[in-house]
Structures are given as structure tokens and as C-alpha cells.
């Protein structure tokens, strides 16, 4: 415990300015372990995806792909006939990859855009406007975060059915389009933190709330909105239960549901592991790309938001 005094400065100074520091080394080792635990399973996904499904069981102890083979990826993209797939020990189910990808993109983008936009509007009303019953209504919104999703799944399903929207993109999108409790909560928290000065100046100039919201508040909230949008998009991209209930047709089946064909198809059967893992990689790719493109921005926005 001799380095206490340098501690606060530690986080600001460049590391190369310092001599060897054993605490730093331990810290890096621990961090490396955490990174390994986080990332190594992805190697196993890749290794399995590049294996022949029928050979996996016999080579369970091999760290390299068992019978290296691109068949699993071919299955994901629908380039293999059922007979070929079955011969490799894979799933013979048909899959319309590009259609599902498009559906997933559509589903995730529309719900993200809608939820983020409408939730921001509501959050603004909760954070910045004064009206009777505001806190009560907000508590009610918040309480919905506590409702077990399984509870609302069936009634929502019946509602979408009554609207005649089963197996349509609109029906799929509807429950998420107008708000998610989390998005409202998130944006309200941000708006509470925002400086009022600009708004107040605009208000004195006689600007309306609409104009303030669109021309001042929203542009200033670009960073948290981007963060929220990315989080929402990721959540929607991985959504499974609702699309499974509502999106049965080819036009409304999203990737997570479509790739379910690699799970066991018959009772007591084994999954097509290599197909499933290839599918996992392929379906995670768009999110990975998004993250690679905007990751830095998001991390910055977290910092920006936190230090405010």
C-alpha cells in the first residue's frame, strides 16, 4: 500500500511514464482473464460452425474443428439441399435466409425508430412539462417494467389477431412501436439532467413546445438517443418469444425464429450444432457491425452523460 498517493493521478497519467507496477500487472492479468472468459466461447462457436455436425460427438475433446466443413454456413444461407444437409448430420429444414434477414432488419429498425421517438416525446412530457397527474402516470408507466412478459403475451396475441394482423410485419411491430417502459424511463432521466437555460431562453422568445422539442431538445439529446437506439435495436434483434407467436409466415418470420430450425426438430433429437453455431455467428454479425461502427460513440455518450 505504498502507491496510495499516486492513485487519483493514476487514471489520468500515461502508463509509460511510470516504472513497473505490480498492482497494474495484477490488474491487467485479472482483466485478461475476464476478457478471455467473455471471448473464448465465441471461438467455440466458430470452431463448431466450421465442423461437420456428424463428427462433432466423436471429436468432443478436439480444440480444432471436427472434419472442417463449410456446410453449416451453406445451410444457413439455404445453399444446401435437404439431402446434403441430412448426409452431414445437419438439419434438413428449409430456410429462407435473406428474407428472414430483411424481416429482422425491418422489425428491429421500425420498432427502434418508433419506440425511441415516441418514448422521447413522452419522456419530455414527464420530465419538462407540468401537468396534473404527471407523476402518477409516470409511476404507472414504470410499473409496467414489473409485469412479467409472459403475462401479457397471450392477451396481446389475441389483440393482434382481432386486428387481423397476425403474420404481418405490422402486427409484429405494433406492441413495441409506441413505447417501451425502459425507453421512457431512460429518456426522462436524460431530460431531467439537461440544462434548462437554452429552453428557457427560447421560451421567452415565445417558441412553442413543439419547436423547442424538435429544434433544441432532440438535437441536444443526440448522444443518449443513439445509445438508446442501439440498445433497443440489439434487444429487438434478439427478440424471440413474440415473433415466434405472431410471425409464422415467410413475410413475418425473423431471423431468431427462422434459425430455430437448427434446434432439435423431433422429441429427444439432437440439435444441428454446427448449423446453430453458424447461424449464431451470421445473425450476430449485423449487431457486431453496428457496434464496431458506433461503439466508440456510445461509450463516449455514456461518459458524457455520466459526467454531466
Amino acid at each position: 500500500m505504498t502507491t496510495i498517493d499516486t492513485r487519483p493521478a493514476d487514471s489520468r497519467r500515461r502508463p509509460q511514464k511510470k516504472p513497473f507496477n505490480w498492482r497494474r500487472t495484477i490488474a491487467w492479468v485479472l482483466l485478461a482473464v475476464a476478457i478471455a472468459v467473455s471471448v473464448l466461447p465465441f471461438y467455440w462457436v466458430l470452431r463448431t460452425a466450421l465442423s461437420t455436425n456428424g463428427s462433432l460427438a466423436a471429436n468432443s475433446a478436439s480444440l480444432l474443428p471436427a472434419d472442417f466443413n463449410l456446410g453449416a454456413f451453406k445451410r444457413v444461407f439455404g445453399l444446401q439441399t435437404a439431402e446434403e444437409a441430412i448426409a452431414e448430420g445437419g438439419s434438413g429444414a428449409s430456410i429462407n435466409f435473406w428474407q428472414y434477414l430483411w424481416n429482422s432488419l425491418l422489425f428491429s429498425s421500425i420498432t427502434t425508430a418508433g419506440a425511441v421517438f415516441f418514448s422521447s416525446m413522452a419522456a419530455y412530457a414527464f420530465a419538462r412539462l407540468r401537468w396534473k397527474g404527471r407523476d402518477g402516470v409516470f409511476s404507472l408507466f414504470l410499473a409496467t417494467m414489473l409485469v412479467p412478459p409472459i403475462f401479457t403475451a397471450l392477451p396481446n396475441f389475441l389483440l393482434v389477431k382481432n386486428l387481423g394482423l397476425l403474420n404481418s410485419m405490422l402486427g409484429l411491430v405494433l406492441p413495441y412501436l409506441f413505447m417501451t417502459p425502459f425507453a421512457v424511463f431512460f429518456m426522462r432521466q436524460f431530460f431531467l439532467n439537461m440544462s434548462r437555460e437554452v429552453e428557457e431562453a427560447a421560451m421567452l422568445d415565445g417558441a412553442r413546445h413543439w419547436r423547442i422539442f424538435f429544434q433544441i431538445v432532440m438535437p441536444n439529446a443526440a448522444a443518449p438517443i443513439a445509445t438508446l437506439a442501439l440498445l433497443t435495436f440489439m434487444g429487438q434483434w434478439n427478440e424471440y418469444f413474440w415473433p415466434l407467436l405472431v410471425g409464422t409466415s415467410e413475410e413475418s418470420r425473423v431471423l431468431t425464429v427462422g434459425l430455430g430450425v437448427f434446434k432439435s426438430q423431433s422429441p429427444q433429437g439432437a440439435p444441428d450444432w454446427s448449423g446453430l453455431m453458424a447461424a449464431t455467428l451470421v445473425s450476430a454479425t449485423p449487431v457486431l457491425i453496428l457496434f464496431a461502427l458506433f461503439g466508440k460513440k456510445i461509450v463516449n455518450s455514456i461518459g458524457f452523460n455520466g459526467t454531466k
Partner: protein
Amino acid sequence: MTTLTKQPGPGLSAGGPQKSRRRGKPAADFRGTGDLKIALLFIAPAMLGFVLFYLVPTIRGIYLSFTEYSILGDPEWIGTRNYERIAKDPLFWNALGVTSQYVLINIVLQTALALGLAILMHRVAKSTIVRGALLMPYLMANVIAALLWFWMLDYQIGIVNQLIEWTGLPRVAFFGSEQWAIPTQALINTWRHMGYTALLIFAGLQAIPHSVYEAASIDGSKAISTFWRITLPLLRPVLVLVLVVTVIGSFQVFDTVAVTTAGGPVNATRVLQFYIYQRAFNEQDFGYGSALAVILFLILALVAFIQMKSLRGNQSDLD
């Protein structure tokens, strides 16, 4: 399904101080109910979604909890009989116990690991690559992550058990033994959310002004006492957010159990939400399932309330 509630927001991190700042200011220009009309306009779309897809289904679910309903027939009003049966249902009490166990392990593990990671990131590694690597598990869908681990942790042909054997230790029945089943479920969840939670706490750490640390170092505080006396209290708003969201999310654990152990071995992983699913959808006793869900909702509300109160989540000691 549960991902929604598991997405805590970085935006809250500094919520406390702001609120108090606002409190101090007489809101002269936003007084009374003057904004009601415009507020209604702003809130209308969200309200529509709220009423249609949250409020009405919830009320309907509460109604169904007083009925006998098999989805395919018509609901038949039976008063509080479902609730009376639940009180005497050993599987419900078992589910409650198992779920609590999961929540406890999950919270302690996830919060401790995430806090440690956040401090490490804060002190030594601020690069986006490190953060990106730690965030990767979060990019995998819940169901897929569960299946992946189900396979890697398999007793006979899983790679993890192979590695354990190579080190000379006996194999572990991660999913099969009653002692391990719930901790394993919690470990998978921790794996997926650890980096994400760490990132949130990391943001909170960054929000602590350096002047606070400098003051502490002038006082001659030791590293450990600095952590307990300064860092942790200042992190409170973030930690409260993380805790509340993780606890609520943990109580609703479902997907990982559904695709792996499905309640077994025996009843070791029959967590509440899975039990609800089993009764409502598998055994088509939707009334009973709804009553169980109402109870789960009440538990969650109580837990959230207690947490907010006891941790004073709205205030930070920075003021």
C-alpha cells in the same frame, strides 16, 4: 422477453444530483397544469401503446386469475380459488425458494464481478477494444447463449468438463446435479451481462470528479478506505439502478431455464416464471398461471419498493 427489463440505462447515473438541483428552483415558467394540453399531445402515442399492450393485458390477466380458463374454452369465474390452491401448492413454494436462490447468487456474483471489472477498466484500461470484448457476450441472444453453455458444460461431451478433466479434477454435472443447476443458470446469466453491467458502473466511476480523490489523498486516505468511504457512496445511484434492474430481471428468469433444464433435475430449476409457463401453456391452466403471475408481479413491486426506499436510490452523496 426478459431483455427489456435487463437494459439499465447509463442516463440515470447522474439522475440524483439533477433532481435536487431542479428541486431548488421554483419552476415559475412551468407552473400548474398549464401544460396539460401540450403534454397530452406529447404523450398520446406512448399512451396508446401503454394502454393497448400493457395496461389492458394486465387487467385482463388479473381478471383471468380469478377464473378457470384453458385458452380454448371460455373463462369461468371461480373467485379466489386459484389463490387458495397456490397457498397450498408445494411447487409454488419450491419455485419461490429456487427463484430467490437464483436471484441472490446472480446479484452477488454479477454486481461484485462487474464492480471489480469497472474499477479495473477505470484504472488501467480505457480502450474501446477492452470494453468491446467484455461487451461481446451481450450481443448474443439469451436463448443462444443458454444453448451454447448447455453444450459446452455438458457432463460427458462438453469442452469445459474436458478441460476440467485435463487438470485432474472430477467432472461436474453443471446442469444435472441439484446443487449445481441453479448456480449454473446464474453463471450463464452473469457471463452474458457482466461486461454490460461493468460498463454502466464504469460510466458512474468516470462521473466522480477527480477533485474528490485528490481531497482524499491529501487527507492521507488509504486505497481501501478511499474505496469504501468515497468511491462506493458516490457510486450509489448507479449501483441502485443496476441492482434494481438486475433483481427485477433475475426474478423473471425464463429463457435460459426453458431451453436447458426445463425445471429439472426433479424441481431444482423450476423457477417462478417457468412454472407459470408450464401451468398456463403446457398444462393449459391459464387461470392458475395468471394467478401465479399476479403474485410474481406483487413480489416484484414489493422488492422494487423496498430497494428504492432502503437504498435511497434517488440521492447521491455528492450533493
